[in-house]
């Protein structure tokens, strides 16, 4: 009697713990939103939102007697240009790697490559930053004749390299989820390997591949340490590939420790944080919608 009551109590406790674990991620997400917004809110009346999105004058610590300016256009273009450049490199490379691993590699090569790709994804971003600063930067400067090795191109290359493993591993899963009957049917109809990949597998795994690219994009947009070291920290709209740029994340990382807590400068950085958060949430939600799309497709196929 008492032992079964104890068992029931134990079971309840475990159930409660698991339920809480499930909800905790939602709680955390909400808490982060509340925190960022609470820190940002007091400065919102002082921010000219037209200036925020249209001016490059980011002057949070102005000279004596001057008003502060919060124009983030240079930072926003910095984030967008490095990210787009990174994606231009990472999407073809990541999808190419996924196609090879999923379709053409031998079983042994596939296992090794999958482990290596996952290892690559686990390299800390600060290490990528060092590689950008010490290895890729000097090479970029030598090849392009750029005056500084830390610039848009170096940042984009690093973000590309960082996103490849994310895209490759998710895209590979998406390709493997395409039923073998599709492959057999295509081959039986005389499709070449190229036709098989481009005409059958890509359309069939379209949503998963898109989700892979969007998650890679999410990683690139939110990346801080690597771009902090590799992009050269100049708040401007780049006019060439080798201009130094500054990203939203780098501005927050570089300035937050130095802005007195509670000051307008500190809060303005949280406004940038909120922008970034919205951007990454939008990307991830879009990716999630696509991923859910695949699952329902699979369910339909199973029926």
């Amino acid at each position, binding site marked *: 009697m008492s032992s079964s009551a104890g068992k029931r109590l134990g079971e309840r406790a475990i159930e409660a713990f698991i339920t809480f674990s499930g909800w905790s991620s939602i709680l955390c997400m909400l808490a982060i939103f509340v925190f960022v917004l609470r820190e940002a809110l007091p400065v919102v009346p002082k921010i000219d939102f037209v200036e925020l999105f249209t001016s490059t004058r980011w*002057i949070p*610590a*102005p000279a*004596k007697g001057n008003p502060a300016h919060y124009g983030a256009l240079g930072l926003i273009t910095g984030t967008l240009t490095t990210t787009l450049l990174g994606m231009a490199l990472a999407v073809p490379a990541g999808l190419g790697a996924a196609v090879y691993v999923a379709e053409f590699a031998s079983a042994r090569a596939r296992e090794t490559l999958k482990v290596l790709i996952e290892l690559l994804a686990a390299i800390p971003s600060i290490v990528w930053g060092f590689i950008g600063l010490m290895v890729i930067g000097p090479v970029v400067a030598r090849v392009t004749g750029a005056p*500084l090795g830390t610039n848009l191109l170096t940042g984009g290359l690093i973000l590309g390299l960082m996103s490849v493993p994310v895209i490759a591993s998710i895209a590979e899963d998406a390709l493997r989820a395409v039923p073998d009957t599709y492959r057999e049917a295509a081959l039986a109809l005389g499709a070449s390997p190229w036709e098989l990949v481009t005409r059958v597998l890509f359309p069939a795994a379209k949503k998963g591949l898109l989700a892979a690219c969007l998650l890679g994009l999410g990683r690139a947009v939110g990346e801080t340490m690597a771009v902090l070291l590799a992009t050269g920290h100049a*708040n401007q709209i780049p006019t060439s590939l080798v201009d130094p740029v500054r990203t939203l994340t780098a501005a927050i990382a*570089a300035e937050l420790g*130095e802005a007195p807590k509670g000051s307008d400068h500190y809060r303005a950085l949280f406004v940038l944080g909120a922008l970034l958060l919205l951007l990454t949430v939008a990307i991830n939600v879009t990716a999630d919608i696509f991923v859910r799309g695949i699952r329902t497709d699979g369910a339909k196929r199973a029926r």
Partner: protein
Amino acid sequence: MVIRRVVVATLVAGISGAACAPEVTPRLSITMKGSDTLVQVATGWAEVYRAATDTVDVSASGGGSGTGIAGLIDGTVDVATSSREMKGEERESIRAKRGAEVHEHVVGLDALAIFVHPSNPIEHISLAELQRIWAEGGDLRDWSALTPGKSGKIVLLGRQNSSGTYDHFREVVCGKTAEGVHREFRGGVSELNGSSEVVEKIAKAPQALGYTGMGFNTPRVKWLAVSIRPGEPAVTPSIESVNSGAYPIARKLYLYTVGEPTPELRALLDWTLSPAGQAIVAQEGYVPAS
């Protein structure tokens, strides 16, 4: 037997420890943070002072003058090192948050040197030219306008906006408009997080122009003589030219504390101005205050 000997040894150690109490009392920790210009001086002080006294442990770090002052406002720092004067609103927030007055101590002088790559043929530059290069609305973008021996875009390397060096350079070099409004820096300057990073980057970039404290001079970069207007005699940074006021971008280096200092802090502040403390200022390439 062995155990007993250990116990006796411990007892003896305990007694002798009690006999000379300062040996075992934990050192009082004083944190000194702020100016990147002063970070070598501050770490030098911390090292020598630790050897000179047995009651105090000084931990010194950089991050920018604004960082140290922010720490002073938040109460996380005992001594803020700064390469610029504290602003009125910063004094206000310290008064409001800490309920005490700020005390200022000048510990040295510095020249803000203008650095270029050693291969650059330019030897001198004027404040008027520097303004046209660095200030918002400035039109000087190409080396050919400065020296016949060089052309190409000038690559600007500066400090981040919490830096006292950034602040002082902006005030002196960017100057004011005709209406008396301070000019800001123009966009597109690479804002670096340390003075030594400025010098290191210039050493690798023949197109670069940057500024930082005279103490960061190395053989791999070259500093320029500076005049007020083009054509006037230009002066290089040196102890003499800073002391006489001939070098146009000189500044004071400060320590800031809040409220009445504890005896230990008082002793440290006095020591930084003593010959031993000032010798470290000179050794790091700056001009002693006295």
